[in-house]
């Protein structure tokens, strides 16, 4: 029986905007298992990053707030612990890696000082010891001549090296969970391969769990054990990486997988597409949100119906551990056979 490390239950996060309150995350639940990698995948605005920011309580203030749900981690509900306690969790038990390493690092402090700060904040050690540990961790993330790099400033490093420093900071206190929000999106493919490889090695060595947030299905397939597919603030489908890639059960997941150009495709053939566009957060219906873009013949009628505006579909477990939004117009197995 796999042991769970983090359980997100029915998380609801909203933002106050000039146009009213928008619910960016609307009832999201998933479980991260110990030592495993969970992928959160979806397109811009689907709420994947807001979910991560909610877990570590770093929502933009004062607009963002958690309206409901629980984030169970180590026997506590992170959604309701005090700010002081949360401060200890962040960087201590939960490490974070952001997309753009240049904004995650302070440009006017040396690498070593920024790394030492993490150690000094979470551990009872001297400055000298913290500095030495900084060199150690830089070595661990594959930075050549770490004893020299430790006294340099972020701008002196290349993009790939900076991301290694950010990873070093995230891992400094041996966290049990690392949240990586698009960790390789700003990097070139060859550097991306290096960084993903590094994260896998470190995970094998240190045994932490990872939440990998990305829009890149290739990165998901390569790094994740479990996957949560999000659409317009909700979970469309979740399951093991095999479930999602080999037996996609939500029409959105299927559409996404079919629309990526693959190397083995015949050149210049038409790519599969998903019609229409992601809905804006202000115009979200209560019902199945993918319906207006669904190829299901009954989708149009459903969008016109009262149910679309008032009835929220739940998730159904179609095979052990594989859940999909339970509405006929978005389920792959409810699609009538082509005549």
């Amino acid at each position, binding site marked *: 029986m796999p042991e769970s490390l983090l359980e997100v239950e029915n998380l609801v996060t909203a933002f106050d905007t000039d146009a009213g309150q928008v619910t960016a995350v609307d009832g999201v639940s998933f479980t991260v298992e110990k030592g495993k990698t969970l992928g959160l995948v979806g397109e811009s605005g689907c709420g994947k990053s807001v979910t991560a920011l909610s877990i570590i309580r770093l929502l933009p203030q004062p607009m963002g707030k958690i309206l409901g749900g629980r984030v169970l981690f180590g026997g506590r509900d992170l959604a309701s612990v005090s700010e002081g306690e949360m401060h200890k969790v962040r960087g201590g038990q939960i490490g974070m890696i952001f997309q753009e390493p240049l904004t995650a690092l302070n440009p006017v402090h040396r690498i070593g000082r920024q790394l030492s700060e993490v150690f000094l904040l979470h551990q009872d050690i001297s400055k000298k010891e913290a500095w030495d540990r900084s060199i150690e961790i830089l070595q661990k993330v594959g930075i050549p001549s770490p004893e020299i790099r430790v006294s340099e400033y972020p701008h002196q490093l290349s993009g790939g090296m900076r991301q290694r420093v950010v990873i070093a900071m995230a891992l400094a206190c041996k966290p049990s969970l690392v949240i990586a929000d698009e960790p390789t999106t700003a990097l070139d493919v060859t550097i991306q391969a290096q960084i993903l490889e590094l994260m896998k090695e470190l995970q094998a060595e240190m045994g932490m769990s990872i939440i990998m947030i990305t829009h890149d299905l290739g990165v998901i397939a390569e790094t994740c054990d479990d996957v949560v597919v999000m659409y317009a603030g909700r979970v469309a489908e979740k399951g093991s990486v095999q479930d999602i890639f080999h037996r996609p059960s939500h029409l959105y997941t299927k559409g996404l997988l079919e*629309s990526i150009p693959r190397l083995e495709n015949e050149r210049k053939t038409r790519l599969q*597409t998903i019609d229409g566009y992601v809905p804006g957060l202000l115009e979200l219906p209560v019902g199945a949100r993918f319906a207006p873009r669904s190829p299901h013949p009954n989708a149009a009628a459903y969008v016109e119906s009262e149910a679309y505006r008032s009835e929220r579909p739940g998730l159904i477990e179609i095979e052990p551990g594989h859940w999909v939004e339970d509405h006929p117009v978005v389920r792959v197995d409810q699609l009538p056979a082509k005549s």
Partner: protein
Amino acid sequence: MISDTEQASFSNGTSQPLLEIDGLKKYFPVKGGVFMKTRAQLKAVDDVSLSIQPGETLGLVGESGCGKSTLGKCVCRLYEPTAGHIRFRGDTISDLKGKALKPYRKDIQMIFQDPAESLNSRHSIGNILEEPLLIHGVREGRERRRKVASILDTVGLPADAVNRFPFEFSGGQRQRIGIARAISLNPQLVVCDEPVSALDVSVQSQILNLMMDLQKEFNLSYLFIAHDLAVVKHISDRIAIMYLGKIVEVGPAEDVFRNPLHAYTKALISAIPVPEPDAQRKHILLQGDVPSPIDPPPGCAFARRSWIPCSDEDLEKPGEFKEVSPGHWVEVHPATVENYQDYI
């Protein structure tokens, strides 16, 4: 590196290429010190030769800073090349200036990466699309509006878009507007600089389909610049791989992917994350990062990062560009190709 005689055989067919780039260089001076003297040259594009046939898509792939966007801007003559020639339909356009360039401007258009930034947010879509028509001599208002309506229809946007503003559209729709603007003057060549990399997957495929449709309909040629190899492979007839200002491999798209020869091309292809959990993955990991194009290392630029070992002596040697099969060229150097002996 490539002589003029070789250039002739560089193109794919026998017909005259639409675009010929010959020994193109674009250096940017790096200034510094109290008197802002030029201290060094940033060699963004360093001796590049390529050609594009009418109706053909040439994919240009490389990592950030390799000079692919600079090359695209030189072709559009947004930059003035430092040296070398650009010929369009046989006419040399690389040394034309000002008014002399205008007749070519409408034939060579550009699509940019971020449609949010390349569209003027204070102009309506109607204004944005009418402006190029006005500049290039469609004087009558009614004629312009008729043309705009037909272009909007071609790129799949509603007719009422003319009165709306860029912010009212999603990223994918905005890219359609960018495409509409680029094709409104019936260009022959469109330089596309990362046209889909800012878009979501589901929208990306819509835009790629649109670009392929337009190419068929108007016999457009594309210089398609991108870092996503799977996208480039899908849309291109031929592919050029660029590294540190130089082309290291060029050939028919299938050839380059099925039979990559350059160590860098192989590393790039192996690094693509495959959307299949059971795929056999063997990443070729490159050492370190791309060196700076200011004072690039002597000899073969890639040798120091290559996974194919070579002697210190060889490091200083420049590579040699060779045609290994019809239309498939590669930089041959002990550190860039496996079984170097077979190539010499």
